[in-house]
């Protein structure tokens, strides 16, 4: 038993719903009690879908438990077939139905429905949403796809995009055009927008583009083995990754590695002098493994940030992220405990968080800017505008998205120079953000904020005390670098066995860490 306040992933049957809802002419019969229909609103409200997810819930109640929940399932499955006449049906159980062991898969098979019925085994008490999506997509592909003659033109399948995914809709468009530039067509996009008949055609492609390993890696491996479809290993988020991706595709297809980068603006935007202030910004990364790995490379190599911590919530990617973290010289945080992530962020005091919508709330609480790079996402992460993460336009979008939460170049300097100005100070917030600036009384001295760090710290084993004058001097440093200055000074002091930090120590440390 484990106490959870917020979860990064839903149960595995929600993953199955993400696949079913993304597809067309597929229906999901879910053995589940009343209340599990809440999951519909994830799709109709958060993603603003204009149709109900294609899911029939058997809706058993306490009084059915002693009686005949199995029959309830059969009736629901038959009614669903007759009403929706799908090309294929997936059947499974939610967490409660798993306990009553009705075997929906077995029952559905004996019903003689005239379409393929694909049973799902999703262990609710061991696995989570991403597993559910990955396993469901794999089962559908395994049941319906067969080896086929390859298309005359070179084509690829785009695999992995689902309903409720982070920018999946726009990533599909971007990659389709990127492949078109190389003279490569798209055979099937799946599960997003695919019918079961489309799934059956997947074997005609020449290779698979694995867009999101979280939701399609198992299917990709199976198709590699059974349908002779190699799959791409690079996720084309960020300029370097796009180039690697293009090289990978060129190697599969024998085509030249063409990349039309005439619309690519990230490298120049990053190189232009206005971006100098981005140098060494301390960022913390958290999300699903795939997006975190891509963001780490982009943050360090293309934005010039310093990655001070990274982690992922999906254990399936733990190994990758641990390895990557080592390369970046940081500790990987593999957890789905929101409170642990909050603690890690608080301790590292980064200048920006690149995370999920959960970290957006952590950032709000701690006063740290945050940009979203990964699911789980909320309604504002489904923008009306075209806003991919992958490909050329994805890189441009990411540059803007990551810069937006920060205080901009000259403004940062002015804050530093005149930080006691009554209407232009730390608490006023970045001037390009919409919220109301908090003005100070014109003649009031800034009130010293009580900070936990006023207490002696024991982090490094040595108790370090800030003398009042040093503490005052520290507060002259703008808030967005104050955390870094405080940590650096304390580490500097601790390493030298200094137990009291004076103004002198502060500037000694500043000189020591100067870049």
């Amino acid at each position, binding site marked *: 038993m484990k106490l*959870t306040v917020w979860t990064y992933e839903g*149960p595995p049957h929600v993953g199955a719903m993400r696949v079913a809802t993304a597809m067309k002419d597929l229906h999901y019969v879910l053995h589940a009690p*009343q209340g599990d*229909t809440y999951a519909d609103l*994830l799709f109709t409200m958060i993603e603003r*879908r204009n149709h*109900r997810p294609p899911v029939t819930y058997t*809706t058993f109640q306490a009084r059915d438990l002693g009686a005949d929940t199995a029959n309830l399932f059969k009736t629901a499955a038959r009614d669903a077939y007759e009403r929706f006449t799908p090309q294929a049906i997936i059947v499974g159980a939610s967490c409660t139905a798993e306990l009553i062991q009705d075997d929906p898969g077995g029952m559905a098979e004996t019903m003689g429905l005239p379409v393929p019925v694909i049973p799902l085994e999703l262990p609710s*008490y061991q696995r989570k949403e991403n597993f559910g999506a990955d396993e469901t997509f794999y089962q559908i592909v395994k049941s319906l796809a067969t080896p086929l003659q390859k298309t005359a033109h070179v084509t690829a399948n785009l695999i992995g995009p689902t309903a409720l995914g982070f920018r999946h809709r726009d990533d599909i468009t971007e990659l389709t055009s990127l492949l078109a530039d190389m003279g490569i067509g798209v055979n099937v996009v799946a599960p997003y927008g695919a019918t079961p008949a489309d799934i059956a055609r997947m074997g005609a492609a020449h290779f698979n583009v694995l867009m999101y390993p979280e939701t399609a890696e198992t299917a990709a491996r199976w198709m590699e083995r059974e349908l002779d479809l190699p799959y791409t290993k690079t996720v084309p988020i960020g300029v370097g990754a796009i180039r690697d991706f293009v090289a990978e595709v060129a190697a599969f297809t024998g085509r030249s590695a063409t990349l039309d980068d005439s619309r690519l603006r990230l490298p120049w935007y990053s190189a232009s002098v206005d971006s100098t202030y981005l140098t060494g910004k301390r960022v913390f990364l958290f999300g699903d493994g795939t997006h975190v790995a891509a963001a780490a490379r982009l943050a360090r190599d293309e934005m010039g940030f310093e990655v001070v911590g990274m982690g992922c919530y999906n254990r399936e990617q733990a190994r990758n992220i641990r390895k990557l973290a080592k390369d970046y010289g940081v500790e990987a945080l593999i957890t789905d405990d929101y409170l642990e992530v909050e603690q890690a962020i608080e301790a590292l005091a980064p200048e920006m968080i690149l995370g999920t919508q959960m970290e957006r709330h952590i950032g709000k609480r701690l006063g740290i800017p945050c940009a979203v790079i990964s699911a789980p996402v909320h309604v504002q992460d489904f923008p009306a505008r075209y806003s991919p993460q992958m490909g050329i336009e994805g890189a441009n979008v990411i540059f803007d998205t990551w810069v937006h939460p920060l205080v901009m170049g000259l403004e940062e300097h002015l804050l530093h120079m005149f930080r006691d100005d009554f209407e232009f100070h730390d608490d006023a917030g970045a001037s390009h953000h919409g919220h109301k600036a908090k003005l100070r009384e014109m003649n009031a001295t800034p009130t010293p904020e009580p900070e936990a760090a006023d207490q002696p710290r024991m982090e490094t084993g040595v108790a370090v005390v800030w003398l009042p004058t040093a503490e005052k001097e520290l507060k002259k440093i703008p808030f967005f670098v104050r955390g870094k200055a405080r940590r650096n000074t304390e580490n500097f002091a601790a390493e030298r066995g200094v137990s009291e930090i004076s103004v002198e120590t502060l500037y000694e440390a500043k000189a020591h860490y100067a870049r």
Partner: protein
Amino acid sequence: MKDVTETGRGCRNAPILKERGQREVFCGLTSIIWLHRKMQDAFFLVVGSRTCAHLLQSAAGVMIFAEPRFGTAILEETDLAGMADAQDELAREVGRLLERRPDIRQLFLVGSCPSEVIKLDLEKAAEKLSARHGPHVRVINFSGSGIETTFTEGEDACLAAMVPTLPETEERQLMLVGALPDVVQDQALDLLGRMGIGPITVLPSARADDPVDVGPNTVFALTQPFLGETHAALTRRGANHIPAPFPFGEQGTTAWLRAVADEFGISDETFAQVTDAPRARARRAVAQAAEVLEDKSVFFFPDSQLEIPLARFLTRECGMQAVEVGAPFIHKDLVGPDMDLMAEGPVFAEGQDVDLQLDRARAARPDLTVCGLGLANPLEAEGLTTKWAIELVFTPVHFYEQAGDLAGLFSRPLRRRALLRTEAAE
């Protein structure tokens, strides 16, 4: 304006269409979203699955990150296989929780579908934990599981579980029952207080130490129509129910107050003195929104059990025509007075088979459909104007000063549809 005492032929004995099938409704756990804000020193610990945790953070459509006073003890494989003693595991998690949150005075262990199916004895757990953590912390259990409760029935189960723990009193008193937004509760207490009615106690109270007691001289008025079990539990404690229409709209509020005032022998003169001004205000406010609603048809999908009292309000005070009024349950003891006041005509449906009900809604093409979040956007996309039902539970809508807001919740979607234009100007 028709007088509320005019009866005519109401709907109490109208035939009820009982349906059984897929239900597009929340389970009782959802009530925790507002209960945990209402009871400020209470923590709601759901003993359940990842699905329960996911529901709680998704249900309201928003996440409340300001120190939530609810959480889920997620059952794992080892708990199910009997490898770990669930009671010990629970005791450990509760111990940790109370250590981290010493401000918690009431802990609710909330049963879920999985905990009910594996027959985890939360009553026993609550007793043991009360003995260990009492008297500082009182531990109570109730079920919010989907196999036993629908949406607002979670609040009912919670309040019903509290009733046996209330101290006994012989005092003649009024109890208001139901978790209301603070602003609404204060208005109700003020109106009743000015009539000279008292003492008044409220269930649930904001804090564990606020005295709430009950006994044979307690009379109680429900402020929500979904409190059937709580009604029964209070009756078992000897308290007497004051049946009344629910206090929605000017007429509903007046009828509800009148019933309470009659119980306490308040004169017509005093009643008029206290209510005349807010009544007039409420009428004016409702009339404004009602201009848009007049003669429009409305179709209710079952959701919170507020459907019947709200249909009464919309048909009597806003001039709407009810096509179908669906409710998860119809407790005539509670909503009978509202049904008495409704003109014959609408279909009353209890339970749900969502696909069949959608067929009926599509055939009727109502001007306004009141439904849950899972159905609203799909129906909008089909050209039907909808009102999300959950907002009716999350917004202050009771009593006089909110009557106009209540009508406004229904008129806004209609006004919005009329407003939006994206075609060329020609």
